[in-house]
């Protein structure tokens, strides 16, 4: 099996379809259980743990890529990497996301990102890097499961991929080494930004689902936040 850089992304399409068919978590009976609150907190804690883990992983990986990728003020234009799920969102749109959409966007993003990370893992040169990446992938899988749990507890269906919207990467002309590294750089950057965003997403969910008092919630609505 001769894996050239261009082909390996194509292989991911196969892997990603496998990932989508994660057995659905049965919806919990909401009455009589503590509600989704504890699992939202758990999901939030997971994002913090992952963000911390990613910091050291990204540092190691970028050093492996070498300059300019490991320079602190490296600021390339965002070319390529178009299929990467982007965390960036209009401020007002983000504020007004309903819970289901907020959770769905997180779930879909991490599914895609996990897929790409697994591709990264197979290309990584050193055993140590592969170990770190594999460990991170496992933790990320845990986060996905946690988000799925919250969605199930709230009665939201897990997003199923429509045919044709799977994260494929057209295996066109083989990526140059430099362009491949750029893709890796953007993957790590997007992953880090998503983890920051998720922390804020789950903060918002925590407050909305477990308001300390109805009066307080109403007070917040009035401020238009």
């Amino acid at each position, binding site marked *: 099996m001769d894996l050239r850089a261009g082909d390996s992304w194509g292989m991911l399409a196969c892997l990603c379809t496998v990932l989508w068919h994660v057995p659905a978590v049965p919806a919990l009976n909401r009455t009589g259980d503590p509600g989704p609150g504890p699992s939202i907190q758990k999901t939030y804690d997971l994002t913090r743990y992952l963000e911390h883990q990613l910091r050291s992983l990204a540092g190691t990986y970028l050093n492996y890529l070498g300059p300019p990728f490991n320079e602190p003020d490296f*600021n390339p234009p965002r070319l390529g990497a178009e299929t990467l799920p982007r965390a960036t*969102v*209009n401020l007002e749109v983000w504020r007004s996301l309903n819970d289901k959409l907020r959770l769905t966007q997180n779930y879909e993003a991490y599914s895609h990102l996990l897929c790409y990370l697994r591709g990264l893992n197979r290309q990584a040169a050193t055993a140590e890097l592969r170990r770190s990446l594999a460990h991170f992938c496992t933790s990320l899988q845990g986060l996905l499961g946690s988000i799925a749990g919250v969605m199930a507890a709230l009665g939201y269906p897990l997003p199923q991929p429509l045919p044709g919207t799977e994260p494929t990467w057209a295996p066109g002309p083989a990526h140059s080494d430099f362009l491949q590294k750029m893709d890796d750089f953007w993957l790590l950057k997007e992953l880090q930004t998503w983890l*920051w965003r998720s922390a804020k997403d789950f903060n918002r969910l925590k407050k909305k689902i477990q308001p300390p008092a109805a009066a307080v919630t109403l007070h917040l609505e009035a401020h238009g936040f």
Partner: protein
Amino acid sequence: MAAPVPWACCAVLAAAAAVVYTQRHSPQEAPHVQYERLGSDVTLPCGTANWDAAVTWRVNGTDLTPDLLNGSQLVLRGLELGHSGLYACFPRDSWHLHHQVLLHVGLPPREPVLSCRSNTYPKGFYCSWHLPTPTYIPNIFNVTVLHGSKSMVCEKDPALKNRCHIRYMHLFSTIKYKVSISVSNALGHNATAITFDEFTIVKPDPPENVVARPVPSNPRRLEVTWQTPSTWPDPESFPLKFFLRYRPLILDQWQHVELSDGTAHTITDAYAGKEYIIQVAAKDNEIGTWSDWSVAAHATPWTEEPRHLTTEAQTPETTTSTTSSLAPPPTTKICDPGELGSGGGPSAPFVIGVPVILALAAAAAPASSLLI
């Protein structure tokens, strides 16, 4: 027949006087404005006068000595700030103003210092700048903000002239912001730029209204409350965590407590009877850096003697109860095992041994500064 002659004479005289007056008091041209560099030499020509014409130079109305002249030109060497002023030259022995120069002595700008900060995340951020050394002449600043390839508007601050504000349109961006500033004046030009990610510049303002109160019947407790900074727009979705530090005024070492929730905390290991200084800092839970320390609050824990204690000030008489300085007073009902077990004070145990002796020796001294 004789009458028209003196009348004409008066008219001519009056006209002549008017001409002289206008030429003396209103210059033929507006003063020429000139900027020169501090420390340099400058030669000011007297307008269009001949090089060897006999002229007098004045600065701000005062005559200048002729040894500064080179022909009709004024030579100033080693310009100092004091040389700034209005220079005027007159043909010698004449009222006729020939030429005026408004001289400003200054410096070209050095590289400006630029920094940006978001204390209103996620609403936006501001950038402020200054010159490391003054130029003494007017400067014009121009700020540009780029987000990737998109240019953003930096709105001038209504009150501060070296600050402008940018509003975030998108959150959670992986693309860095680049803020450039250029400064120019009549003598030169300079510029600088900084690049940063959205998350790295987040730094809230310090917590507000930090108040510390003694707790009645608890000689080792202080209750501290504060408020989230009013500039932080959305503490619900973007919660802050807090860092509290406190020490008795008489010690240098701070105690620290990090709090992930709430805007109140009770200190339970305060030295009885000692005035404390307390400060709080804030940080977004996940991103950015800690704020500066808040304005300090002062408080002294409750003491058993009935005194007219205000909530925040320490009166000197309380230090005469020296036996209670570092241990719970024996007459107090010690009913909270947590207090005894809570480390019993700061992390510097050496403090406990020595002052007991000092305390006994200084029992008669009213001043608290004698203790340690």
